């Protein structure tokens, strides 16, 4: 497989060399004839005696004449027959040079060759990577968010994207790391290998295409070629999900299931929802708050659209004990029997669904314009509604932001956040897994502490190895003057995990502690730990 790939890659270069053969042979022939001519034509020496040019002098003369440098008639003034031959050779040699250089320039501009050169440069970049990296297939809005979050956490990525303008966007994006990107088809096995599948530092592969078949193909390819690589894929169909699970795809993300889970968390445990958002966002981003208290678990909801999204959210709300009125257009999706028939964009339909008495409304059709229209109409009818909009196209972000909704369900963000949660350091992942076990009022206190500490910016999370033991507060130099500057999230001792340990909790050498705080505190703490080790 390796040699087959190399052969295909070199073919363009060989093609170029082969096409240069005729111009080069022409050039050699013209020079040979010119040189031979000068050695044969009778000339005259300095005193007028007959003298023929030697090969050395002939080659010297032809060399500077053919390249249009023209030092003059060297070594002795020419006879007229030599001048006649010079006239002939000037034109032939200049024409053959033009032919050779013209062919070379034409070949340099050949798209195939340029693509080949770009691919080689990209492969060299990937080969020289010395840190663990993730291979990201596609570079749409989801991947853009993801790559940015990863780069901010100094996690290396490599991008394969089909559209050339998106690769251009990657190259011009202002990321803290150099992220190599190539314009190629990610479903092609050879492309994935060029992009680092099989590289000893390739930790995982991420494919979040909106087409399930693409994700499936990429997952199969990577599991066949390097089974040890973690494969993270999106699947929108239950069938695809089962198929992917059958050959060992490590993480399968269903955007609809993510929305359903998020809604469940938001309604039943708003503070947990908020904390999960904070700890999966890129450090340094502004902290998102809870804009509006969501309706309680038993609230009344109106759900417009009953596709896969609507069905997932319907199930989630029913599970929470909510009362849901469905507005559906297509009977083929089998909406519940008491559903209202219609699009939901007209006030009549919404009134029929009793939107005036509802607590929340979800606009979940697959058309952004319709969703926005539903939301605007519903807000007119009942200004107190908790509004959730489903955004399908990344281009409409500004519109959904202007609509000032309580929650926008956007695939890109949901998928990127979820992938980030599964890619973060193992200790941070443990923290996110354990977080739901804490009581809601504990989380509320914790959230307000984090908000005060980080001054409205997403906290940085880092891990410290305990060297000497003692209370957790002792790990931080600034804590000695009584002002805690960071919060311990998790204490790991062997396989034991203690969530949100108290500052006075004793640690032993060999433990590790996960902290959160500002970026500056992180550096300060790291620096202090380094000093301590040297002392």
């Amino acid at each position: 497989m390796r040699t087959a790939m190399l052969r295909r890659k070199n073919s363009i270069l060989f093609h170029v060399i082969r096409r240069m053969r005729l111009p080069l042979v022409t050039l050699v022939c013209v020079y040979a004839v010119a040189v031979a001519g000068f050695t044969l034509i009778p000339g005259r020496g300095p005193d007028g005696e007959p003298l023929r040019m030697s090969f050395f002098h002939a080659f010297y003369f032809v060399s500077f004449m053919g390249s249009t440098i023209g030092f003059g008639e060297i070594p002795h003034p020419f006879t007229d027959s030599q001048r006649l031959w010079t006239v002939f050779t000037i034109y032939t040699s200049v024409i053959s040079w033009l032919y050779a250089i013209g062919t070379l320039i034409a070949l340099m501009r050949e798209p195939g060759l340029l693509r080949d050169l770009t691919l080689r440069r990209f492969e060299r970049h990937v080969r020289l990577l010395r840190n663990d990296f993730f291979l990201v297939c596609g570079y749409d809005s989801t991947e853009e968010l993801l790559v940015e979050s990863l780069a901010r956490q100094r996690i290396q990525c490599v991008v394969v994207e089909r559209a050339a303008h998106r690769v251009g966007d990657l190259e011009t994006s202002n990321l803290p790391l150099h992220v190599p990107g190539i314009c190629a088809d990610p479903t092609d096995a050879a492309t994935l290998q060029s992009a680092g599948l099989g590289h000893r530092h390739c930790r995982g592969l991420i494919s979040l295409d909106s087409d399930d078949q693409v994700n499936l193909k990429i997952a199969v390819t990577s599991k066949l070629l390097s089974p040890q690589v973690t494969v993270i894929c999106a699947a929108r169909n239950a069938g695809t999900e089962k198929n992917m699970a059958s050959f060992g795809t490590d993480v399968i993300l269903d955007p609809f299931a993510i929305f359903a889970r998020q809604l469940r968390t938001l309604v039943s445990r708003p503070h947990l929802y908020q904390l999960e958002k904070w700890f999966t966002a890129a450090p340094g981003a502004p902290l998102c708050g809870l804009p509006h208290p969501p309706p309680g678990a038993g609230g009344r909801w109106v759900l417009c659209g009953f596709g896969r999204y609507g069905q997932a959210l319907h199930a989630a709300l029913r599970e929470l004990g909510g009362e849901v009125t469905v507005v559906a257009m297509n009977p083929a999706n089998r909406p519940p029997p008491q559903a209202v028939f219609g699009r939901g964009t007209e006030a009549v339909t919404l009134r029929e669904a009793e939107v005036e008495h509802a607590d929340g409304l979800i606009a979940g059709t697959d058309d952004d314009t319709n969703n926005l229209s539903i939301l605007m109409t519903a807000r007119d009818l009942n200004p107190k509604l908790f509004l959730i909009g489903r955004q399908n196209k990344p281009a409409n972000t500004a519109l959904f932001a202007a609509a000032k909704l309580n929650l926008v369900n956007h695939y890109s963000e949901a998928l990127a956040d979820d992938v980030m949660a599964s890619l973060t350091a193992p200790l941070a992942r443990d923290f996110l897994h354990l977080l739901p076990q804490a009581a809601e009022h504990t989380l509320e206190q914790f959230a307000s502490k984090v908000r005060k500490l980080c001054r409205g910016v997403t906290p940085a999370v880092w891990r410290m190895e305990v060297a000497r033991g003692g209370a957790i507060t002792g790990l931080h130099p600034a804590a000695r003057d009584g002002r805690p500057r960071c919060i311990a999230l998790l204490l790991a001792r062997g396989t034991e995990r203690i969530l949100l340990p108290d500052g006075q909790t004793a640690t032993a050498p060999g433990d590790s502690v996960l902290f959160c705080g500002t970026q500056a505190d992180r550096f300060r703490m790291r620096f202090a730990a380094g000093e301590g080790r040297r002392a």
Partner: protein
Amino acid sequence: MNPGKVVFAFFILLAMTLNFAFFIGAPEDPGQHNVYLLFAAITVGIIATILKFGERSQLGAVLLATSLVADLQLIAAALVWATATFGGAGLSAETMSLIVALSGGGLLANLVSVILLTAETIMSRR
């Protein structure tokens, strides 16, 4: 019959025969070694080298290497000749035998090239 193959084989063979024509004769006698033959051998040798560019097979790579060796030795012979003539020392019997020896090395490389070409032709006949 492939015209490309004819040209290819023609130049490789001609490079060898011209090289041989220059090489043959008493080594120390400049009268028995024509400078035009050396010039022709170098020119045809360079053309043969260019024709071997861009061959992807293992054999193509070896063929290119033999041609490069032959060119190197023949050009070295020409340089020795030029320095001896124009450096003032004159073309002594010693220098001439050095030139002929270098061209003999080139001849050997050209011979290997022809043998490889013949071998490939016979193999592909099967």
